[in-house]
């Protein structure tokens, strides 16, 4: 109950972590099933339809329900602490964002049990995703589930923007903000501009499917190419929503373990902003083979290649942060150091793909599969691992085992390269992506076998991490406030895990890497910016949970509004939108309660603060 009602950013972070971990696990199992099917030619482990459902759900789950929530978990756990705030700007909305994400994700995954998962690829290209060619409710689960989950992301993004703009501790100017706070800020801005595009796209596709509209149906005058534009105007920035936080994490971890400040901080900030900006300009490089014509292809090719420049700046700045440092390879830094070469490999194939005439060959082959897994797994997942190992003691008060951590790293990275490096060659040798099997004697057999073995090793690495988490959870909470000893930013100046008010007194920030600066000046902690006083706290409330349940019911009701059920009464309820209305009533009712009932929250008094 405590967890359902919480509005504390630290608890919401843990909720995001568990829910994200759950979906990541589901997505991972789907990946292993895909690889098992492809272990040999003409395998019949799963049938073609199931395979298409697996690839669709693997992509969708990993991107929207796996890695994004884990990113949000770290942001929630860390951002208020890093900027010296007591919570996010809107704690109630923060909880609402989590619950809508969770119920959207649950709705999407219910499709496995309710007559077929979405099967048109995570990009859901029309007309394949239209009712004429995808007759089950699968794609409805996709459109409505993602719509609900997307609400949560948008709410979260706006919340972080407001938090970072308004709640930085005194003295923390934008150019004194830690890099992770910066990348969170930019990521949130991308969310704010990119998510409305997918929202609109999903609404239109829902209308096509459920209300019989013709936005993307060629026979009715609609355009399938329009869907591709809408999808990728969101979809490409989405890549940066994923990778920028990883850049932020790496920029935190490397200076800590090199005992050096980040090399070229201001160029890092501007590179981040530039990447975000360019990220919106390049969507059509996913559409080189759509037939947009040479002028569009040339423009989008060149603008895409330009992204290599700010990304290159980042890579070299990280390397030169390590240069001249005193580098300690604790598990977080192992992942961060492994990230640099691995991500670079994903980056260079990105530039190769940007060359449009070469992309005519790369597009929709395993070369592309290799490329984006190098970026998302070799980049983002490695970054997340670095961040989780790094901030785990701060979030839970317990240090993860270093031995197991190192085993996790080596197993995972070996498995990763084994899985995806060979896929570059598979693509060039003519293997298209999204094929449920392949004919023998095309020189695909050996490399696919290698790839599947690698995937198994990656799975083993994940299990080692889970074992580490489980073993650690049984140890006493004994991590100090600054367990890595070289913490540079504000979160390390308070106990682990932090008290619910975070900072007894808001700290005064006197420079970049505020806590490091005080330590170097010989101070034990931060200088407070205010006297000890009564701290205002928001009340716990079940309303965000109830609102999300309402939207979930409304979504299900809308999805099945055209179906005939065995029971006439049930059909009556669905076909007359009664279920939909009921769900919306719950949501709007909860909103009404929230508006009418004035909750002033509560206070932690100074005596209580001193008493602890």
């Amino acid at each position, binding site marked *: 109950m405590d967890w359902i009602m919480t509005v504390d950013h630290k608890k919401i972070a843990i909720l995001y972590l568990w829910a994200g971990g759950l979906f990541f696990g589901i997505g991972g199992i789907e990946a292993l099933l895909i690889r098992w099917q492809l272990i040999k030619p003409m395998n019949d482990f799963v*049938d*073609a*339809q199931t395979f298409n459902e697996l690839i669709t759900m693997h992509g969708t789950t990993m991107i929207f329900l796996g890695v994004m929530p884990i990113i949000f978990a770290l942001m929630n756990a860390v951002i208020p602490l890093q900027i010296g705030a007591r919570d996010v700007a809107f704690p109630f909305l923060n909880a609402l964002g989590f619950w809508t994400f969770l119920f959207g994700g649950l709705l999407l995954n219910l499709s496995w049990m309710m007559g077929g998962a979405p099967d048109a*690829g995570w990009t859901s*290209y029309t*007309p*394949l995703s239209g009712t004429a*060619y995808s007759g089950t409710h699968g794609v409805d689960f996709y459109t409505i589930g993602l719509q609900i989950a997307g609400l949560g992301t948008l709410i979260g993004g706006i919340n972080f923007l407001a938090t970072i703009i308004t709640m930085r501790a005194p003295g923390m100017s934008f150019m004194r903000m830690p890099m992770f706070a910066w990348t969170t800020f930019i990521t949130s801005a991308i969310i704010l501009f990119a998510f409305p595009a997918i929202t609109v796209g999903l609404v239109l596709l829902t209308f096509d499917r459920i209300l019989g509209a013709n936005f993307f149906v*060629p026979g009715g005058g609609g*355009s399938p190419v329009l869907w591709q534009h809408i999808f990728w105007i969101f979809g490409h920035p989405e890549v940066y929503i994923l990778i920028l936080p990883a850049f932020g994490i790496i920029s935190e971890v490397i200076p800590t373990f090199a*005992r*050096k*400040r980040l*090399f*070229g*901080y201001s*160029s890092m900030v501007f590179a981040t902003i530039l990447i975000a900006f360019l990220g919106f300009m390049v969507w059509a490089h996913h559409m080189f083979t759509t*037939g947009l014509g*040479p002028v569009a*292809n040339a423009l989008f*090719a*060149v603008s895409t*290649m330009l992204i*290599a420049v700010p990304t*290159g*700046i980042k890579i*070299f*700045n990280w*390397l030169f942060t*390590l*240069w*001249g*440092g*005193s*580098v*300690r*390879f604790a598990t977080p830094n192992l992942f961060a150091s492994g990230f*640099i*070469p691995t991500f*670079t490999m994903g980056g260079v194939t990105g*530039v*190769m793909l940007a*060359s*449009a*005439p*070469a*992309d*005519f*060959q790369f597009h*929709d082959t395993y070369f592309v599969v290799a490329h984006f897994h190098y970026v998302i797994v070799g980049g983002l997942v490695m970054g997340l691992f670095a961040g989780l190992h790094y901030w785990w003691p701060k979030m839970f008060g317990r240090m993860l085992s270093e031995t197991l951590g190192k085993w996790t790293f080596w197993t995972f990275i070996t498995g990763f390269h084994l899985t995806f490096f060979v896929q570059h*060659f598979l693509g*060039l*040798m*003519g293997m*298209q992506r999204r094929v*449920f*099997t392949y*004919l023998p*004697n095309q020189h695909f057999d050996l*490399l696919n076998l290698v790839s599947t073995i690698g995937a198994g090793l990656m799975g083993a690495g994940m299990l080692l991490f889970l074992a580490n988490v489980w073993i650690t959870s049984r140890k006493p909470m004994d991590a100090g406030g600054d367990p890595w000893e070289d913490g540079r930013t504000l979160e390390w100046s308070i106990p682990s895990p932090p008290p619910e008010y975070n900072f007894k007194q808001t700290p005064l920030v006197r420079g970049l890497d505020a806590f490091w600066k005080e330590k170097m000046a010989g101070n034990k902690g931060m200088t407070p910016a205010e006297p000890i006083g009564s701290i205002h706290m928001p009340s716990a409330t079940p309303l965000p949970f109830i609102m999300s349940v309402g939207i979930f019911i409304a979504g299900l009701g809308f999805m099945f509004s055209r179906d005939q059920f065995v029971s006439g009464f049930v059909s009556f309820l669905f076909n007359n939108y009664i279920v939909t209305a009921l769900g919306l009533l719950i949501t709007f009712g909860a909103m009404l309660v929230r508006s009418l009932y004035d909750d002033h929250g509560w206070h932690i008094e100074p005596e209580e603060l001193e008493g602890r």
Partner: protein
Amino acid sequence: MMRTWQSARRLLPLIAVFGMVLAGCGREDLSVLRPQGPAAESSLGLMKLAISIMIVVLLIVFSIAAYVMIRFRRKPGQNGIPEQTHGSFKLEVLWTVIPLILVIVLAVPTVRTVFALGDNHSGDKNAIKVKVTGHQYWWEFEYPDYGIKTAQDLIIPAGKDIAFELTTNDVLHSFWVPSLSGKIDTNPTGATNRFSFSAPKEGVFRGKCAELCGPSHGFMEFKVKAVSNDEFNQWIEAQKAPAVLPEDPALAKTFKEQCLKCHAVGDQGLSVGPNLTGIGSRESVAGILLNDDTRQDGAPVEENLKTWLHDTQGVKPGNLMPDPKQDMGLSDDEIDRIAEYLAGYKLN
């Protein structure tokens, strides 16, 4: 002697990797890395340029990374605080300008090739025009200048430019012959795509669908058969010849009533399904059952036709052909005799 053996052992992994890369080149009729035509060659040219640049970048990044990770590792007992450098304007300008130059080096030929490959030959009198239509899960090839249609095997004269016009009848597909050219999507009419390629050498090249189009997406294969000019003209004439129906009048009647509701042979039937004229001389049945009994993975055309007709959903799940036995009420014997007839329907 010992030393030679040791240095050879050190080289083994390198040789292994090199061997794998060479083996990784793939089949001549399929691999992007072994281009058989100018379009695929120009794509590969760009790839080679890009990969050379990228290998240089990777080598630089890897060596700096290896150097810093080894050189600046914290030794036991080392507790000092290293110098807190802020950054270096010069260095940062350096690694902004160098990538920019590399990007320009790649961007110029990219743009040039985009426009070169963007040339379509639809107005070219010497080019052979072919209308490609994607279907779930087969390919239709129409030669408007000759008034003929065929399916699955695209016959082209070697050395001539082929001007394609591509559309789809249902969902999006993508037309791809890796060893001859990059791919292009088939959009519904209204967004018809045009492009062209040529195959200088005679031979059979494997083509694939590269856009997810449903369950049998992976099986939507086709063959491009580049033949001499004379052979091409002969093939055109043979295609135009009147239909050859089964000799047995009863079977001919069944064939006409059941099969020609969707398919066409010669001047008879409809073109809802693949055109069957001369199916006996094609490279494959259903695009994936190879008609080559000299190969381990192939079978005689008659056997392949029987496999297909007895289990259409098993061969290509989700395809739209009704089951000859269940849906059309043909007997096993009739099916076998139709397969026999079709296998014997050869063009030359």
